[in-house]
């Protein structure tokens, strides 16, 4: 069996991992805590405390309905994690299956799949997701499917190239001669060796998906009120930007932390997995 590349625990990689995990950890922690407890209910309006600046009772301030921003931010993190996670899951499944099939069989199956995939990639991602959600209605489920569809071709590409490389290796040829069924070869031999290439793509995919999802929520096509999501909070906050900048700053910060965390981790992966990685 081909040697799996072990993570190079160089000090540079560790810095990235640590930084990434810290940023990511903040968001994940907010999410986990929000499952059990938030300082106030995210939907609880309180007319008496509208638009309060950050203070002891409301560390992140309140919005125009009097809702506590900290609680809303914590509850919004679950959508970010959920949507990006599920979206990547769908993209992975769709992309890996099509990519491996295309790489393994080649020929017309390959051309067909790649033509289809390239056509999808011709639409700026946001456009496609917007249209899909517009056609089928703005709901969390639709957003997940739309994003999964948009990112699947990227994963398909990675898998296809990897499969084509691995296919030429001796032990695969031996397996084929022995009469091992193609499906078994693809699942048991080709796929496990793709994981090291899929990992960075997955992490970046998570980050990009969050970017898209928050953009769509900003436009009102994603998570619907009264549920909180970072994009929606930002669009609501825009009207009050001069009076209450904290409404913009805190959701933006959380969003950036999540994406930044993911990027740092992917950098760590890149440095760690390539010998003498250049930063």
């Amino acid at each position, binding site marked *: 069996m081909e040697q799996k590349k072990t993570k190079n625990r160089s000090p540079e990689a560790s810095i990235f991992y640590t930084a990434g995990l810290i940023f990511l950890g903040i968001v994940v922690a907010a999410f986990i805590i929000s499952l059990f407890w938030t300082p106030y209910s995210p939907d609880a309006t309180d007319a008496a405390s509208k638009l309060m600046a950050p203070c002891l009772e409301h560390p992140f301030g309140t919005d125009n309905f009097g809702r506590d921003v900290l609680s809303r931010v914590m509850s919004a993190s679950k959508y970010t994690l959920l949507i990006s996670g599920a979206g990547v899951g769908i993209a992975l499944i769709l992309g890996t299956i099509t990519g491996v099939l295309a790489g393994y069989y080649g020929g017309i199956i390959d051309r067909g799949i790649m*033509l*289809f995939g*390239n*056509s*999808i990639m*011709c*639409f*700026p*991602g*946001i*456009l496609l997701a*917007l*249209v*899909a959600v*517009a*056609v089928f209605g703005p709901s969390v489920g639709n957003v997940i499917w739309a994003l999964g569809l948009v990112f699947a071709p990227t994963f398909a590409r990675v898998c296809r190239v990897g499969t084509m490389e691995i296919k030429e290796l001796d032990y695969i040829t031996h397996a084929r001669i022995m009469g091992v069924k193609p499906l078994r070869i693809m699942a048991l031999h080709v796929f496990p060796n793709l994981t090291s290439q899929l990992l960075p793509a997955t992490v970046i995919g998570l*980050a990009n998906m969050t*970017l898209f999802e*928050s*953009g769509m929520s*900003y*436009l009102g*096509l994603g998570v619907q009120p009264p549920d909180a999501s970072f994009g929606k909070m*930002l669009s609501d*906050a*825009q009207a009050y*930007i*001069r009076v209450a*900048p904290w409404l*913009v700053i805190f959701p*933006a910060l959380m*969003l*950036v932390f999540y*994406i*930044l965390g993911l*990027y*740092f981790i992917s*950098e760590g992966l890149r440095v760690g997995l390539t010998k003498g990685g*250049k*930063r």
Partner: protein
Amino acid sequence: MKSKSGYIIGKIIELILTLLVVSLLVFIAFSVIPGDAARVMLGPNASDSQVELLRAELGLDKPLVSRYFSWLLGIFTFNPGVSYSYSIDVSELIAQRLPVTLGTSAIAMIMVIIVSYPLAILSARKPGRLGDQICSVIGHVLFAIPPYVASLLLILLASSVFSLLTVGNYVKPSDDFFGYIGCLLLPSFAIALPKIAMSFKFLRSSIIEQQSSDYVRTSKSHGLSDFKILIRHVLPNSNVSSITIISIIMSDILGGSLIVEQVFNLPGLGRLLLSAVQGRDFPLLSGIVFYIAFITVILYFISDIASSFADPRIRLK
């Protein structure tokens, strides 16, 4: 395909095929919109016969295949029909909004090139030193900021600190060209920021990689100055991947401008798209989506051809 023209012809065929698939996707996607367009236009109180009349007028009662072909014909003659909600020609609507979207995309692209190239070159000269480290870290952070978040933050900054660059007032280029550019500056910058980071990072690693190669060492030992090596050898060699990255960035910029337009209240294609979405405006929607995809496909095509000129070995693959 070893010949130049053979490669190009192959690419053109690919281009046409891709466009066909794209058009199919767009058409099918919009044919399945729930809700009958004619009924939506006339309102729930219209009688059935009125709806039927309108459907016949709009050509909605013809079979799907013939509708596809007549739509396709319309698209390619730049006449995709009349908008349902605005009752103007779709092409006219798009033409009105095009300057905004194209303007922001173009300015953003220029910003990306102007900022990232020099920075990347400077950073690559002294990798690992302080200046390089700072740039890299800032680059990473900028990468993570979505354009519309950046735009919000920029608005905050600009209005509170500077009170410059009025937000929300759009000036047509025919009225006042510099005013036009002025109000597009901030949005373009917001879009450009993450792409600058991306381009910088990529260029820098590409240049560093080149610098450790043999021919650079040889040229240096021959006494060729660093600058000349850079211009004549390193940059052209990184051209191929640069072209690919630039085309990806361009299509990202196009997509990013859609949202940023919302933030800055600019009357561009993005806003048009959204209103078309809400109004179930099939001709408008399909027209915009297709033309944007069309631009992207052409962009990729041009970049493929350009790459094959920059590095003829690609044609052999």
